[in-house]
């Protein structure tokens, strides 16, 4: 354990307000791709155990890159991440990963897809099947265990992706715009399911999205990122009570946060589509 907390990262308060030992720390991280594109630069943050953290930013701001570094798929070019004290750890069973497009293997049925991480944990075929069976029930996928991904809707595919991550029961969940490719209704339903699964689980979630609504509805704290090269620009606390439900979306606090965050990232979003010259502000409203 590297112990000392440097204080170079944004304030580290748990939802309960107590200062604790962060489970994930990112310290002055930089990643430059071989082609010379700088995805991240001077990116720092700290996450307390059990927090639901949102990384919010415009497309191409490096938030997915950051998640890949946390997962161990990518190594940073400078700086480091510490997961439970381990520096730049390789992929491991302490972190579950949910991919944007579910990332199911099309030649395996639902059972086998959910069991991908379980077999790596050294479980027997039978033990793995028991766990995947339970996950299937939890995700409302009863009867679909022997179906192949192409036989499922997009929403069901992503439920399998989430089930695969929960199956290894990791303390940390890394989620890379998991609902971004779904239609609006399915997306809302899966967000509510996510809340239901997570609340009371004690798991730490780091959730990447570019949707402000999703960020506020799900998160404890929102780390707003700058456009590329990405770093943390601001940390916004979401003080909405839990358990959250559909009603949460209509509270004044929710709407106020929505407006605040949109004001914050609007400029970046405009630049991303190539519009929004200074002075033309508000033209879209």
């Amino acid at each position, binding site marked *: 354990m590297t112990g000392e907390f440097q204080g170079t990262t944004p304030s580290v308060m748990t939802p309960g307000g107590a200062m604790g030992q962060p489970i994930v720390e990112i310290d002055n991280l930089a990643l430059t791709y071989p082609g010379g594109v700088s995805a991240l630069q001077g990116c720092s943050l700290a996450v307390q155990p059990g927090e639901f953290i949102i990384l919010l930013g415009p497309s191409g701001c490096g938030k997915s890159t950051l998640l890949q570094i946390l*997962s161990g*798929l990518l190594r940073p070019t400078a700086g480091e991440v510490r997961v439970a004290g381990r520096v730049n750890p390789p992929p491991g*069973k302490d972190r579950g990963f949910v991919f944007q497009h579910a990332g199911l*293997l099309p030649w395996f049925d639902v059972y086998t897809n959910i069991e991908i991480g379980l077999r790596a*944990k050294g479980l027997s075929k039978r033990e793995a099947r028991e766990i995947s069976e339970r996950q299937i029930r939890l995700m409302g996928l009863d009867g679909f265990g022997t179906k*192949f*991904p192409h036989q499922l809707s997009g929403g069901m595919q992503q439920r399998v992706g989430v089930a695969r991550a929960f199956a290894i029961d990791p303390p940390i969940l890394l989620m890379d715009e998991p609902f971004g490719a779904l239609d609006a209704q399915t997306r809302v339903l899966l967000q509510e399911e996510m809340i239901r699964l997570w609340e009371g689980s004690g798991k730490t979630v780091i959730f990447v999205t570019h949707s402000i609504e999703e960020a506020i509805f799900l998160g404890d704290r929102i780390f707003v990122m700058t456009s590329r090269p990405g770093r943390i620009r601001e940390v916004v606390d979401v003080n909405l009570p839990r358990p959250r439900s559909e009603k949460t979306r209509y509270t004044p606090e929710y709407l106020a946060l929505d407006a605040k965050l949109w004001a914050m990232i609007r400029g970046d979003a405009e630049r991303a589509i190539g519009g929004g010259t200074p002075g033309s502000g508000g033209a879209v409203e």
Partner: protein
Amino acid sequence: MRRVRRTLITLTVLFALWQLAAVLYDKAYILPTPVAVFAALVSNLAEGKLLAQLQISLGRALAGYLLAIVLAIPAGVITGWWKLANDTLGSVLELLRPVPALALIPLAIVWLGFGEASKVAMIAYASFFSVYVNTQAGVRNVDPLHIQVMRVYGRGTWDVLTKVVLYSMLPYVFTGLRYSAAVALILLVAVELVGSQNGLGFFLFQSQAFLQVPDVFSAILVFGAMGFAANLILLAFERRMIRWRQEVGSDA
């Protein structure tokens, strides 16, 4: 169904025209009538001499073809996955590939003799390349996302190869297998026409020497049937093995 009907009608018309032309031309030793050809085919099959030759030819073709597959798939995987293998083994194979296999038949005979070895070796050599090249392409076209999934869930290279690459390359491999089956057949004819004492190709050669043109046709028809059957068998095999990408909406 409609396609089958149209095909049958077209064939009937073609055979009728052939029959008419042959009757008008009236030189059966050059252009026999289709009726005479089918009569020859039936009697050759019934007497068993065509089947005996077919058996010999089939044995050669299969031996060469299977040998090619057993070598080409691992070679394609290894060179497709590891750069070092591609820069060494892969480079050598790339240099051999453009050499027309038929040009190597004399060398094969000098080295391996007139027996089975040279024939099987030539068929294997020529069938090798398209299975190899397609397997390699399949390995290189693996979706990186699927590899990431395995890695992020703690699976090593062996699992990536056996649980991802092996499956995702299959459609490519089958393309290679079907193409190679056609090549194997071409080489079979070639090695049996050049210095063989038996087999369908030898029967073909002999029938031509004795001006038995209906027999020539019957051998050609059997070769054609072999190619047709090989393709059908491989397609059926492919459908069985690649169930996961079957028709969208087969289940709803």
